[in-house]
């Protein structure tokens, strides 16, 4: 938690994401139960929790890729499906084949779909926006590289540029540093902190200790919201999230700082 976040005036702002009594299950077993969460304009929120705790499912619901079975979600005052064009999304794993014959610039340009006319090619404004987004993530030099030749960290930047080029109001990232080495992890989060000056950011992570240095607030999800806090992240919180009331994850004998690195 940063000191500044306490001072930030957010109470008069409307929530950009509002989740009430949300429930969802795949078949018999519930994945999410009675989830209540509000994210205010300009916040940088970390969503943490064990694997299979429902983090990715919650993101899919916010993005409108799944429909809630109980409760409701409003994004930017609209239903998730209506709002999705104003939400930038960076997936954990690329959902495309790495050997696809496409350049970085073309990948970023796909983020401009939904702008301008339905027919025809990309316009000059789209190309300018793609270059601007690549410059913002410091990856302009990669523009003409083939997507399959990038390293994990480079690919993550390009996917971030693809999300930014759509000029979103909210940025949602699923484990943005899961596939890159630790040295680069700080770079990505420094970049996100800069973007947070103009965007609301929701980032999913296992690594509660690491992200707590960057985010305003942590929401801990294990089927329901276990905690919802701006307190300093301490052993007690980690224990509540990953501890004895959690069946899926057993971290006997390891300290909390190590525990989050177990996948």
């Amino acid at each position: 938690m940063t000191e500044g976040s306490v001072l930030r005036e957010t109470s008069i702002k409307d929530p950009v994401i509002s989740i009430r009594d949300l429930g969802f299950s795949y078949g018999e077993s519930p994945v999410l139960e009675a989830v209540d969460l509000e994210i205010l304009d300009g916040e940088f929120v970390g969503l943490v929790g064990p694997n299979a705790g429902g983090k990715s499912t919650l993101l899919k619901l916010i993005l409108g890729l799944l429909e809630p079975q109980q409760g409701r979600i409003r994004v930017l005052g609209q239903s998730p499906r209506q709002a999705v064009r104003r939400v930038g999304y960076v997936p954990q794993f690329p959902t495309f084949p790495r050997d696809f014959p496409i350049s970085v610039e073309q990948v970023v340009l796909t983020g401009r779909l939904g702008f301008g006319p339905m027919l025809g090619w990309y316009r000059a404004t789209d190309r300018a926006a793609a270059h601007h987004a690549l410059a913002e993530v410091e990856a302009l030099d990669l523009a003409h590289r083939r997507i399959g030749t990038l390293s994990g960290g480079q690919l993550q930047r390009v996917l971030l540029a693809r999300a930014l080029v759509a000029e979103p109001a909210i940025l949602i990232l699923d484990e943005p540093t899961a596939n890159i080495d630790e040295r680069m992890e700080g770079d990505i989060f420094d970049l996100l902190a800069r973007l947070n000056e103009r965007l609301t950011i929701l980032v999913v992570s296992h690594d509660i200790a690491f992200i707590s240095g960057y985010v305003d607030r942590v929401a801990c999800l294990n089927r329901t919201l276990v905690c919802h806090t701006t307190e300093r992240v301490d052993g007690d919180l980690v224990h509540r999230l990953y501890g004895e009331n959690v069946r899926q994850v057993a971290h006997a004998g390891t300290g909390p700082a190590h525990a989050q690195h177990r996948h």
Partner: protein
Amino acid sequence: MQDFIQALGQHAFLQTALLAGLLASLGCGVIGTFVVVKRIAFMAGGIAHSVLGGMGAALYFGFDPLLGALAAAVLSALLIGLVRLAWNAQEDTLIGALWAIGMAIGILFIAKTPGYTTDLMSFLFGNILLVPRRELWFMAGLDLVLVITVMLFYRQLLAVTFDEEFARLRGVPVAFFYLLLLCLVAVTVVLLIQVVGLILVIALLTLPAAIAGHYVHSLGGMMLIATLLGGVFTSTGLALSYGPDLPAGPTMILLAGTVYVVSAVLGRFLVRRRSRSRAQRRAVLSEAGS
């Protein structure tokens, strides 16, 4: 080859055949590229084979078999697409079933067609030498439909081919464009059936684009090279088959297949040599550094 060029000047049917091959290669380059990068060759095979049902029915009821082929191709493209969108599981089984059912329907209709004269073999393996001149216009029309559709919706088709989930998040109607792509494959299949018949279609649809993919790394580049290669394979295949009086379709396919294998082996060899020379350069640099 000399004989062929001489004969080309004399015989109108050879000129027609050559033009038919060139018209078909446009479809095989543009849509074949989508089939290769989207990895839907098996679906394209299913569409191609089920077309026999439409051709048989058209013959039986006295329509132009090509119109029957077009109707059947689009119908089976939509069926296969909807099956995939609705039930993701068992897709391959259902495509296999449609493949065989289409052919069975076709063969029953052909068997019961009174005064049946058309050779079944020419449906299955094509006969480019029997393409009537007026069908060139039909093929040119199909080419026009393909090229205009791809030009108008290039961004959406690329997005749906590359990353369906992201396209959906950008508000692209993914199901619509997926079905549109399969319908374009159906049109291309009908275009190529003229040249090589419905069994060999799948090779002409995938091999030129796959060879192009060994050398160029953009979708547009693949389309261009694959179209050129398609033109080379159909016209060279036609020329090679003319002298020894071989069937043209299988000659074209063998030519394309040979080039594909050589290109794949050569490509692998080049990659290995390049990475070896890079490793050597690195070794030299590190030696110089120490």
